[in-house]
């Protein structure tokens, strides 16, 4: 069982009465080299690393190697503990976990690239927050990760997930689309709704540039992981409310790819444009001088 685009994925789901995660698991088994048990075991390890990286910095703040971030997860957690947060529980926990993963990553902790290291906070951020709030089992979250994986696979296959090729929209945009598709499945939505949510995210993050200060995976990357969770949440709620999208995921992915290829090189991970060249960013970084 394999698929080359979202249209074929949807056909497989419909004709076999399967969810996206079931198709993705079957594909991994049919086309890869691992047994079904090994596949689940590996994903269990992915979830374990995600959980550690999302929770450790909440209690133990970590200063980043480049010195631009550190301690944000604890601040967000303290703030929501005091019930001051305006966003609901899922959003508050989601952004806390997302910035925590980036804190862990930037201080040389162990993370899972999802799909990249710079965007590694979005998928665990949203899915772990939903698990906390709705008490989903690990098995359910693991299924959601396979559904997220299907979106990331299509992006890697038919477009790009590299900031150097397609800007931040390709990294954070895809990560957020992955999170949305997983979240929809976790909430009992249909495969079509998962793909609509993923399409919505790519639309809403279209054109986002990759402009890391000092060329480091720290700032604004950490902020954008939090916004990736928010965007995924918006798209998930819209899809589950029954709003369908005019532009299907395959077309939106191609659109994102075309926009990425038209971005000037200064805005594709080179640290030569965007936030990276704002005066305050240049002062803080000091690499050039």
């Amino acid at each position: 069982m394999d698929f080359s685009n979202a249209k074929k994925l949807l056909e497989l789901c419909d004709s076999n009465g399967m969810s996206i995660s079931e198709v993705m698991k079957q594909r991994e088994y049919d086309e890869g080299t691992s047994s079904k048990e090994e596949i689940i075991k590996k994903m269990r390890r992915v979830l374990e690393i995600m959980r550690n990286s999302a929770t450790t910095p909440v209690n133990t703040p970590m200063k980043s190697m480049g010195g631009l971030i550190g301690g944000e997860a604890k601040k967000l957690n303290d703030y929501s503990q005091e019930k001051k947060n305006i966003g609901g529980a899922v959003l508050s926990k989601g952004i806390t976990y997302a910035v925590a993963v980036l804190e862990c990553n930037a201080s040389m902790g162990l993370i899972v690239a999802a799909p990249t290291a710079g965007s590694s906070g979005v998928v665990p951020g949203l899915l772990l927050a939903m698990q906390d709030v709705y008490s989903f089992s690990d098995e359910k979250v693991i299924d959601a990760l396979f559904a997220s994986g299907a979106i990331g696979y299509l992006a890697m296959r038919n477009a790009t997930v590299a900031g150097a090729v397609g800007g931040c929209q390709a990294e954070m945009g895809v990560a957020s689309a992955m999170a949305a598709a997983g979240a929809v499945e976790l909430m009992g939505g249909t495969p079509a709704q998962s793909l609509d949510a993923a399409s919505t995210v790519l639309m809403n993050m279209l054109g986002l540039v990759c402009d890391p200060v000092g060329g480091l995976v720290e700032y604004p990357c950490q902020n954008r992981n939090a916004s990736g969770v928010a965007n995924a949440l918006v798209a998930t709620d819209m899809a589950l409310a029954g709003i369908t999208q005019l532009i299907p995921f395959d077309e939106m992915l191609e659109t994102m790819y075309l926009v990425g290829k038209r971005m000037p090189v200064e805005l594709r991970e080179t640290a030569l444009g965007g936030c990276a060249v704002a005066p305050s960013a240049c002062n803080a970084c000091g690499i050039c001088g």
Partner: protein
Amino acid sequence: MPFISVFDVLGPNMIGPSSSHTAGACVIAFLARKMLGSKPKKVEFVLYGSFAKTYKGHGTDRALLGGLMGFGTDDVRIRDSFDIAKKKGIEYKFTPNSEVTDIHPNTVDVCMEDEKGKRVTVRGESLGGGKVRIVKIGEVDIDFSGEYSALILVHKDRPGMIAYITKILCEHSINIAFMKLYRESKGNKAYTIIESDEPIQNTVKDDLYKNEYISQVMIVQ
């Protein structure tokens, strides 16, 4: 098109912050160590391009040193690799080189010396997503990824060498997936790199060394 696994999407499991500047750097040094084939005593890392500019903030230095000590990309000891190297008595040095610019932006030369004074220099490029390419050993341009089990042979450039090597591999039931030949100059030192789908057993080494013209056999897997 090669198979894209769900664990290529949700993965690699890695020590941050960057798949190219941290995980990739670790893999290059890991492969370099295998190519040295013995315990490194001294090492100098010469960093080029983006590596030279951002190596501290990306922990490229710690990752390189960790890889040299045999740590994988998901080994949490990478963060403490300076201390671990000191305890092991490994002398290390990082030299940024900003003068050479016509080079892949994430390039490093790993110049190693073992306890007996044997020196090997390996150049690697980090291509993104943790993928790497070894492009030079000593003064000879080569190309291998480390994704397959590899056998690297240093031998004299003379007739019959390839026939001898492939015969030994045949006797050990090793299927050759890719094979590349390089040489410094006609009749002098030559390199043969063989990549295989299966793991390569150490016993192959003994049989290969029976040929007087083979001076070094390295297994990298």
